[in-house]
């Protein structure tokens, strides 16, 4: 119950840190989408490039987060942003690239070849096929990638407190420093709850963007 007491006594602070956390993740994910989705689409047109791009994104993904934040500091300090939100956001954007790019790529590649052939044969340009067939059919899987990226980023952003980015990681970091368990737990629980909410929200979004014809098809298959 200490955790509950801590949270109620510091409600304003917890709320402010949660907002800050959401802000960092939100900005990072928005930038990641703007970069990742077009890259994912672009590499479907070139298999060699696809392997290279996905390989690179893989490297970012497998770098330990604490190390990546560490690398950001010297890289960004010449621009006056070695600490704080900016390096955290840059690192989160890099982390999110793999699920976003890979899901976009796979989703578009998995559009049944006969649909692409029919579209081509009827005289749709490459751009038109993308807009009318490939992206609408791929979008549920693309959103699923965003969902993975968002949930993952919420967890990783907690560590960004160590480079002064703020967010719920601050509770955990300070709790560890003071050996004050309720504070650590409060941070951990709020991060988890936030992740669960965002995950549910994205699941709803996934359903919303699924084309009606596809939903009808699913219902037909499952009786």
């Amino acid at each position, binding site marked *: 119950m200490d955790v509950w007491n801590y949270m109620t006594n510091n409600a304003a602070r917890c709320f402010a840190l949660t907002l800050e956390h959401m802000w960092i993740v939100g900005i990072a994910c928005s930038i990641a989408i703007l970069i990742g989705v077009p890259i994912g689409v672009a590499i479907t047109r070139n298999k060699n490039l696809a392997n290279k791009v996905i390989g690179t994104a893989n490297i970012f993904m497998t770098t330990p987060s604490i190390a990546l934040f560490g690398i950001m500091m010297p890289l960004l300090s010449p621009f006056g942003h070695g600490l704080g939100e900016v390096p955290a956001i840059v690192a989160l954007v890099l982390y999110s690239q793999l699920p976003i790019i890979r899901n976009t790529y796979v989703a578009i590649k998995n559009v049944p070849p006969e649909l692409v052939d*029919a579209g081509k044969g009827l*005289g749709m340009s490459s751009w038109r096929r993308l807009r009318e067939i490939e992206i609408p059919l791929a979008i549920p899987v693309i959103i699923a990638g965003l969902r993975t990226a968002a949930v993952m980023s919420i967890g990783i952003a907690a560590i960004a407190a160590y480079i002064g980015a703020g967010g719920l990681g601050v509770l955990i970091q300070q709790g560890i420093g003071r050996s004050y368990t309720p504070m650590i737990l409060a941070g951990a629980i709020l991060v988890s709850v936030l992740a669960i909410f965002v995950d549910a929200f994205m699941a709803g979004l996934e359903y919303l963007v699924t*084309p009606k*014809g*596809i939903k009808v098809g699913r219902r037909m298959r499952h009786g």
Partner: protein
Amino acid sequence: MITYEDVTKIFGGGPDAVTALKDVSFEIEKGNLVIFLGPSGCGKTTLLRLTNRLLTLTRGSITVNGQDVMSADPVKLRQSMGYAIQQIGLFPNKTIADNISTVPRLLGWDKKRIQERVDELLSMVQLEPSAFRDRFPAELSGGQQQRIGVARCLAADPEILLMDEPFGAIDPINREEIQNEFLRLQRKLKKTIAFVTHDIHEAIKMGDKIAIFQDGKLVQYDEPETMLAQPKNHYIADFVGADRALKVLGLIHVEEVMDRNPPNVVKHDTMAGDALKFLEEKSFRHLVVLKRGKALGYVHPRQLKHESASVADLAVPYPVKVDADMALKDVMSFMLMHDMRVLAVMDGDGNFAGTVTYDQIQKRILEIYSGEDEKATEENPK
């Protein structure tokens, strides 16, 4: 009109190069439905896909209505031809109306014209527009989807259709039906069609002409009758099947062999004795009994013996009605089922028009196949 001239397609390069088509030349005349026939890997689909530049020619030329396809804009070229494939490829995220109107929308037709065209096409393929327009492909049966595929390829009323096994994905009963419907449409629309199939029955049924391919080469290009009657070599003879004599019967109609003034007819009021005498004199074994221009039935010598009634009372009605545009295949089948060598043919008003006999059918088959054996041995000397 589509003209193929020395069409050659090589996939890949160097030691891995595969020649899919080699020096193929022929012409599809305007308004004809030409079948590209052959086993898988013979090059038939490759040729189709070269025609709308889904593949790129290696050598030779393809001209469509006088225009070289290689100098055309591929997207515009494809919009000018209908395209239907075996997997149908309806877009699952689009309604039936949007699927059908794919090409008209690409061509920028206005909304009203598109709506009218969609309804017209749905009616054309026997689907109720108000019931289907706003549904999604997943809600339709295979046969219905295939019809939509055909409607979509006809949408902008292209003069040329390219169809790659368009009825390949449905069950035989539905296929038969949709083939018949399509043939009816084609008689009206007179499109120039390249139609790929590996089904010899479909080929004979649908084709004005058939192009048979083997290993990337055009082996024979002829009308179905000729293909069945005079297969150029053993490959084609095997492909069209050992039962090709039966298949050719499917293409010949009663009117081509029937006897319009048969001698073995009697009037209904002839007495049995006189009829028997007539039969024996002429050594006929079958006599058609006529009453006011209609065939009452037939009599055999056996039935007439020791009878004193008129033939009208003795006549056995014909078990089936044969008309002049029936295929000999069906007539032959009736003859076998009912153990009869002669059947009476009726005209549109039910009047007697003549007879068709087993011997006439056989004579016709022999005429068609005379000379085939020599040809086969010539090409494959043992």
